[in-house]
């Protein structure tokens, strides 16, 4: 396959050691495996980034090297997997044609892929009111509805574009919620993130449509490191949804994303995720390692951040969408459904850090385990000395299907203010034979019965999702648990 002449040239110009260049085929160009300062420089150059961005990345990369040397990967989660060789991963892969002016220039193959995924990329198909930013492997492919949003002053674009077009905003907020050295994977992400979505909603503006990103890992042996930054200015509102899929592959693939939310006075951000990365096969071969850092800061008084997640995919999920409640009377919410079937492992939960007065947080977690999967809720509620009148309510329910799986609940509660009220409730139950028989006696197939019971179990969380995605999530739950009984 002929490599794109310009690509070869770029590589040759960049660094002599990349002498075998790219594996470039019709669809994409891939940076050779391996991670070094040059990898970081390459990615930055590829995106035409300014110096400050490169410096930021290099700082992260050096910090990551130290972390890798001193402590290595975090080992406290209840997940087990072979050691990851970080030199055996491609850190950049992109559909070849870039700098697209309009959707018409997007590779039809790519559009077809998104169509298969049910993502309405073409504007005429998205009258439903969802603006989509699609990230294929590492590069943001197209952002729909951009013009309409622009009229309202809302910026919704790829991270790469934001770095170029809105450097002030990016410089001000990037890393302000998840610092460069936050944790092993976040630090790695800071060094090599390739793209992601950027949203800015100006003061007083209520974003009239759901904003949405779809992530897709396509290439083999490719890591995906997207970076999302959402800023909701005073009194603004935005609802954001991300979906994720990946093809079936025998080897494991790494996904280490970072999402930062900044919420000002009286603003509200709702962030929903439907994560369906490839979970691996029944024996646990292949699947995505989903090591993600998501955190929001309620900076202003009366601001509100709500995380809703439906996690059905990935071989391993390591993810704790959190809220830092700085502003007085600010509100943090976490609604989660995590499904682990077959050999999947999920260690997920949240952190609610109460700093401001009268801050409130709610945690509803529903963990479903089937097959020989392990599913852990791990959560922290921390009330700092200044958080007078803080309140938290946590409810963690585990549902077990079969007798070879495990459900675990690990709540940490630290309260340093006497006026705080913290409640924690937890239950563990099984789908009973009585329930299954009852449903089947009414004519439901065994699989529909499981799906019905599980959806009922998750109802409090599912009803927090935007309508159309709730329907998708319900179907997904059924599919994820196929073959889990009998």
């Amino acid at each position, binding site marked *: 396959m002929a490599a794109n002449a310009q690509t070869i040239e770029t590589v040759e110009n960049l660094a002599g050691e990349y002498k075998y260049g790219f594996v470039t085929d019709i669809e994409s160009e891939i940076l050779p495996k391996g991670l070094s300062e040059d990898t970081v420089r390459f990615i930055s150059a590829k995106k035409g980034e300014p110096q400050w961005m490169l410096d930021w990345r290099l700082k992260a990369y050096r910090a990551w090297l130290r972390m890798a040397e001193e402590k290595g990967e975090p080992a406290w989660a209840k997940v087990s997997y072979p050691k990851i060789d970080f030199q055996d991963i491609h850190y950049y892969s992109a559909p070849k044609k870039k700098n697209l002016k309009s959707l018409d220039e997007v590779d039809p193959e790519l559009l077809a892929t998104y169509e298969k995924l049910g993502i309405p990329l073409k504007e005429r198909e998205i009258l439903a009111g969802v603006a989509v930013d699609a990230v294929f492997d590492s590069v943001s492919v197209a952002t729909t509805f951009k013009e309409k949003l622009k009229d309202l002053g809302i910026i919704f674009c790829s991270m790469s574009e934001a770095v170029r077009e809105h450097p002030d905003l990016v410089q001000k907020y990037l890393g302000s919620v998840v610092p460069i050295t936050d944790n092993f994977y976040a630090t790695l992400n800071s060094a090599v993130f390739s793209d992601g979505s950027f949203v800015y909603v100006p003061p007083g503006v209520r974003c009239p449509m759901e904003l949405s990103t779809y992530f897709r890992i396509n290439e083999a042996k490719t890591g995906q490191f997207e970076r999302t930054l959402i800023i909701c200015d005073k009194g603004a509102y935005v609802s954001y949804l991300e979906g994720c899929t990946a093809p079936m592959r025998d080897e494991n693939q790494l996904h280490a994303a970072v999402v930062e939310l900044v919420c000002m006075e009286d603003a509200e951000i709702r962030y929903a995720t439907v994560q369906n990365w490839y979970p691996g096969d029944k024996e646990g071969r292949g699947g995505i390692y989903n090591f993600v850092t998501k955190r929001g800061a309620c900076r202003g008084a009366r601001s509100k951040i709500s995380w809703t997640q439906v996690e059905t995919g990935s071989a391993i999920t390591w993810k704790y969408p959190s809220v830092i409640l700085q502003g007085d009377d600010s509100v943090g919410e976490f609604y989660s459904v995590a499904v682990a079937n077959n050999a999947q492992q999920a260690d997920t939960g949240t952190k609610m850090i109460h700093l401001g007065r009268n801050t409130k947080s709610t945690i509803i977690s529903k963990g479903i385990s089937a097959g020989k999967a392990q599913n852990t809720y791990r959560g922290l509620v921390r009330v700092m000395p200044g958080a007078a009148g803080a309140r938290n309510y946590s409810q963690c329910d585990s549902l077990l299907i079969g007798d070879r799986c495990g459900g675990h609940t690990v709540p940490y509660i630290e309260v340093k203010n006497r006026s705080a009220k913290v409640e924690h409730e937890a239950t563990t139950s099984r789908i009973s*034979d009585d329930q299954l028989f009852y449903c089947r*006696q*009414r004519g439901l197939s065994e699989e529909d019965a499981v799906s019905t*019971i599980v959806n009922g*179990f998750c109802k409090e969380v599912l009803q927090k999702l935007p309508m159309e995605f709730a329907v998708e999530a319900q179907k997904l739950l059924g599919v994820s648990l196929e073959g889990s009984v009998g």
Partner: protein
Amino acid sequence: MLEIKNLHAKVDGKEILHGIDLVIKPGEIHAVMGPNGSGKSTLSYVLAGRDGYEVTEGDILLNGQSLLSMEPEERAREGVFLAFQYPVEIPGVANATFLRSAVNAVRKHKGLADMDAMTFLKTAKAKMKQLQMDEKFLQRAVNVGFSGGEKKRNEVFQMLMLEPSLMILDETDSGLDIDALKVVAEGVNALRSPERSALVITHYQRLLDYIVPDVVHVLARGRIIKTGGKDLALELEAKGYADIVADAA
């Protein structure tokens, strides 16, 4: 309609039913009465095909077709409905959602299109009125927080919606006060038709004042020891099970 032939069944390796013969013709209502532990509930579960209830001998035919190789849901779609003695709770699942799935599963089996939401609601509300049930039960989670009587009424409500060809009522009268009993019985009577049969399992005669059976069987120790008309139920009520069981022994 229903033909039970020399039915032997085991639960946990222990034979509970020791050869039951019973024929219910279309349109007939049969009552099965018996003391506790006689195998009444086992019979209902075996008919419905519950896992763990193993048929070791004999056959069950519904309209000439053997049910034994069918899964519980296949039997349900063929028209077997079991009103549970202890209806099961399904948290978070609205009664309406659950029932509509059930109705449509049965309709699909019959080659009919799904019942749309509007028609479903209209039909459901009409049936609920018949059973003097509050409409709010449609939105409540299946049997969750229902009183004993409400659960039983909900079973009959489901039955009215699903219009089965064979109704099996397992101690539907237990836990019902007399007013509720009448309402439930009316619901069942409303379904009486020449092509629909019922097997009413009960410990007490009381229910049979309202759902008048064509035939009454006495089940004891896994066998039908006596069969008669409606009067047999009254005789049982007057004499108690002990005498009849002793007579038969």
